[in-house]
């Protein structure tokens, strides 16, 4: 078990679905050969297909103390990284419109803003996802080569790019499907929680660049960190699919959409535009308490009172949102 654990809290009520995090991550880490289709950070509309398609339904993780089976997602499940032949149209006089290739049938953000219907009322929200840097990483356990490890100083889970043999058991084992195979290098790759940045005291690219300012980063075990406060003091952030057994270290402040038409002023318990069962599916049964708590806090503020939890979620500046402690977690390798 690591001595410290970096964690991230994402407040889904502030997410814009803008994918700046996705691009921040992509341009920094996966702008190399073999990485075109992979998004270590992705943002998906919920309810929805997800990326890769149906990742939440195909298996992996722990049950009764053992790893659960899962198929490997196909390229269609991830979505191809389309290429475009601009030259023929723009410079060669061929007159063919520029078209994506291969023909689009699926994609990493294919069902953006679609969501679900609830008695005629549409509902959706965005779910940004990175590797959860789990306390009990199923990926780590599945690797026969022991090339995946949890950094002892900060709990970040990484794949040794020298020792990985590309067996891909980790991809199957991860219930969040947050490991991707690089066909060019023959290695599996995943989110590294931006350890090179954290080591220099800079917060993760996806957090630093998030204009929604909804990501909070720090050590879960540091009582001063915003993640500690949100998860353990205010108790308004929950992990995704807790029953998959890996104990994620990424937490979410669950979303509440506006009431359905005609129900203005009704409590979320009476009129959940997003069905509470769906939220329970994602975040476990505790979500009901958390949503109720959040709603009460919001009411307090909107009636002129003050909520410490919401004041923290406002996250007025980077100093409030992030507490990166490179000195504390330093280790002699």
């Amino acid at each position, binding site marked *: 078990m690591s001595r410290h654990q970096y964690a991230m809290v994402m407040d889904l009520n502030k997410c814009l679905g803008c994918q700046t995090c996705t*691009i921040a991550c992509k341009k920094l*880490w996966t702008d190399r050969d073999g990485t075109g289709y992979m998004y270590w950070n992705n943002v998906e509309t919920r309810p929805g297909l997800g990326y890769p398609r149906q990742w939440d339904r195909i298996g992996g993780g722990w049950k009764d103390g053992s790893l659960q089976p899962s198929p490997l997602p196909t390229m269609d499940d991830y979505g191809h990284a389309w290429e475009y032949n601009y030259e023929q149209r*723009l*410079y060669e006089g061929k007159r063919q419109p520029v078209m994506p290739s291969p023909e689009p049938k699926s994609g990493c953000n294919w069902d953006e803003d679609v969501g679900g*219907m609830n008695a005629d009322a549409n509902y959706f929200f965005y779910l940004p996802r990175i590797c959860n840097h789990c306390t009990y990483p199923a990926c780590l356990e599945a690797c026969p080569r022991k090339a995946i490890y949890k950094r002892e100083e900060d709990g970040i889970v990484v794949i040794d790019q*020298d020792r990985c043999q590309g067996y891909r058991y980790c991809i199957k084992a991860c219930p969040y499907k947050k490991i991707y195979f690089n066909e060019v290098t023959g290695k599996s790759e995943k989110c590294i929680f931006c350890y*090179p940045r954290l080591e220099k005291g800079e917060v993760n690219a996806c957090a630093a660049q998030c204009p929604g300012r909804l990501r909070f980063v720090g050590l879960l075990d540091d009582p001063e960190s915003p993640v500690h406060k949100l998860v353990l003091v205010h108790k308004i952030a929950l992990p995704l699919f807790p*029953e998959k057994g890996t104990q994620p270290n990424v937490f979410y402040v669950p979303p509440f959409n506006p009431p359905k038409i005609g129900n203005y002023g009704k409590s979320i318990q009476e009129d959940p535009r997003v069905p509470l069962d769906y939220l329970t599916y994602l975040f476990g049964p505790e979500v009901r308490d958390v949503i109720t708590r959040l709603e009460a806090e919001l009411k307090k503020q909107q009636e002129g009172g003050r909520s410490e939890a919401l004041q923290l979620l406002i996250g*007025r500046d980077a100093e409030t949102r992030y507490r990166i402690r490179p000195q504390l977690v330093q280790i002699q*390798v």
Partner: protein
Amino acid sequence: MSDKINPKKPFSRRGFIQTAALTAATLALPGCSRKEKPVLSMLTGDFDPLRTYPYRGWEDFYRKIWTWDKVVRSTHSANCTGSCSWKVYVRNGVMVREEQAADYPRINADLPDYNPRGCQKGGCFTEYVYSPQRLRYPLIRTGERGEGKWRRASWDEALTLVSEKLLDNIYNYGPDTNSFFSVIPAMSPVSFCAGSRLAHYIGGVFLSFYDWYCDLPPGEPLTWGVQTEACECADWFNSKYIVLWGSNISQTRIPDAHFAYEARYNGAKIVCISPDYNASATHADLYFRINPGTDGILALGVAKFLIDQDLIDAPYVKEQTDLPLLVLAGSKRFLRESDLKKGGKEDIFYFWDTKQQHAAPTPGSMGSDQKTIQLNGADPALTGTFQVQLANGKTAEVTTVFELLKKELSQYTLDKVAARTGLPAHEIELFAKELGTRKPAMIIHGAGTNHWFHNDLINRSFILLVALTGNIGKNGGGFNHYVGQERIWPEQGFFKLAFPETRKKQRFQNTTLWSYVHSTSKDPHLYNGKPIEWYIQESVKNGWMPLWPKNGKKPRAFIVWRANYLNQAKGNEILESSLWKDLDLIVDINYRMDTTALYSDVVLPAASYYEKVDINSTDCHSYIHPFGKACEPLFESKTDWDIFRALAEKMAEVATKKGLKPFHDDAFDWTRDFTQLAHDWTGKGTIQTDEQAVNFILGNAEETKGMTYQQIQQKPLRFIATDPESWNSDIEQGVAYTPFKHQADKKRPWRTLTGRQQFYIDHPWYIDLGEELPTFKEPVEEKYPLYWNTPHGRWSIHSTWRDHRAMLRLQRGGPIVYMHPDDARKRGLQDNDWVRIHNEVGHCVCRLQILPGEKPGRVTMYHGWEKFLGFKQGGWQSLTYIKIKPTQLIGKYGHVNFRLNYWGPTGNNRDIKVDVEKAKV
């Protein structure tokens, strides 16, 4: 919550390192109430990767990726209201990535800061710089226009060709046959000025953009006498009631949306009014799924409720608006001094002073000697009918604008409004009540409502709501419109650089009118029984709107830079087959081959946003920050500044070679000696480089006096003051900028005919068309069943990033039209089908996405798609045509006069309708 994980009973035989420090496993974490803990299998070998790992040297692999040689601050010039400061990272001479600079200074400790500003598009601009679309060399067309056949030319050859043509036109057809189009100075004023200076010195016609793109809210010049005034976005946080009306901030205000959602956590309520359940609606407390085109009636219904329930701020209304002003019952004209006294002024107006029981002149109107609107103890009546004695001796009945307004509003009963908007009556009532009581309250306004034909009426109705409730001129309140980066803060410095001999000596032209008249456009509708041509003729004849070139001539040369005219043009097919054909020289200056470049004759490669020196500002924030050269302009490209300087030099050279005599330009009595053009253009040699041009602007504006380019390369700087000629509030330390404090606090007159927020426009055309007051008019009648909605979206800034591979991969790879499942079912359409969208104007073929959030009866395609990408046929503008609203052609009415991008007909497009069918492909 869960039972604790017991650290004394480790679940695997490996045990845990027990350290003094807390570890994740010892914390009582939510969602971990499983009784069963995973049992990690027995590991062979001598290490346990869950505890420790012996081979960590490889970690440098990723560390090395996050390295660079150089960081340069720059930004984007895409007509994006965002205006975000970015750091560009350069490694081995290649621009590898960018990251928000995130160093905007903070306004005060309570307000959330502006960092980081930037979106996903800004985060991958570097990819454009090296993309196949990037223009590398000057090109001259060899095939048909738009065919994409070119030959590479030298700069010398290309510039000579352009120079000769421009000079020929001037001498043979007149300087007004050379037309210049470039948008939005604020996004890169130096680049803008490079070309505007050339237009200025050669007498060319400079075309408008903000009205043409329908981003100008015409209700603002009408009501307030300004172009657009809005608070900076940090001020949203000061609000207690935020109404998102036609503005999908999660998509279109990505760097600023957080202020609204954070304001909510700070106690504001958010109302979202939009036909589609969208990415901003999900954040609202109250969501109104309004019928398209009915926003105006909702606003007027709410106004009626506010007045009926006495939820108005009467002292504010009496002092700050024209609602107490007197109107003659017969003529419907304001009561003027000229009515009461022989030789009286046309621009002095009256209210009924209840204390003195007489009609008293309002202070602060255009003709008033008083430069204040302070009432000095008078108490204007809001209601009532009164008798006044006219100069001709007769008595006349007068009443107040407020009385007339009440009469106008009486038709907008709750039931009628509910029925027309499709909203529940009791929720409209709750909304009105909250708008009247939660203060400060603001409307964040966008293109969703501004792009309708009756946008002026819609604007005026919305402004009315925040005026009645006394919210304008107060932090956290107001009507705040953000569409396009229209406003340049250091305005006076900019004007001096852009049009050195002053704007009086420049030919300006409203583009909507220019494009309509110089093409085969034909609006089939009649307005009060007359075709729009009648109104255009009258307007031009009366000198209300200019129409260049004069005397029925056609424009001959068209120079486009920093813009994508053809792709973005309403009625694009109509223009392509007429106006475009008549032009005999089209020059496009660009860093990428966009649709306009593709359909040009000469294409000149420009430096990208990361290879130039310039500045950038927006009404979304109160800072200035620069463009910088992360690399020298790539390939053979040059900065816009250098391109136009080279063009000026080449024209001078050609003029000298040909021995051209100076040209006398009668319009301005200006003798233009083109052999001296380069000398003139560089300000007699004083402004040679773009950095000098930046410093010229900074040094000549109140907002930025004392700043230099080098300083703002270090850090964005907040404006130090505002020029009272240009702005309506001061910049105050520690306070977010909000407009109209000069009026609300300092009691300075509004910039209107009456010196007040003017809801009553007594211009004869307004009276004839029944629009003297805000009223509701139905969208323009069109035959087809589905509204064609082409809003701004998250994936592009207009056409920029529409053809960007990294962005396309996060969408569906090409243009998509969104349709409600019911509409799709009715037409037998499936998700991802190829569909043909058509109306009597034209058609296009693209893919369908079924979207339950879309409103039935409407289809949406986010705008800006390049015509060459993803459409099997046509494009998104193939279905639109230019439709001019007569009321927007007026001029010479007090504060309502033609001014470039301030007042002139808008290129609206929301009323267009279409049908959709399965395409045969």
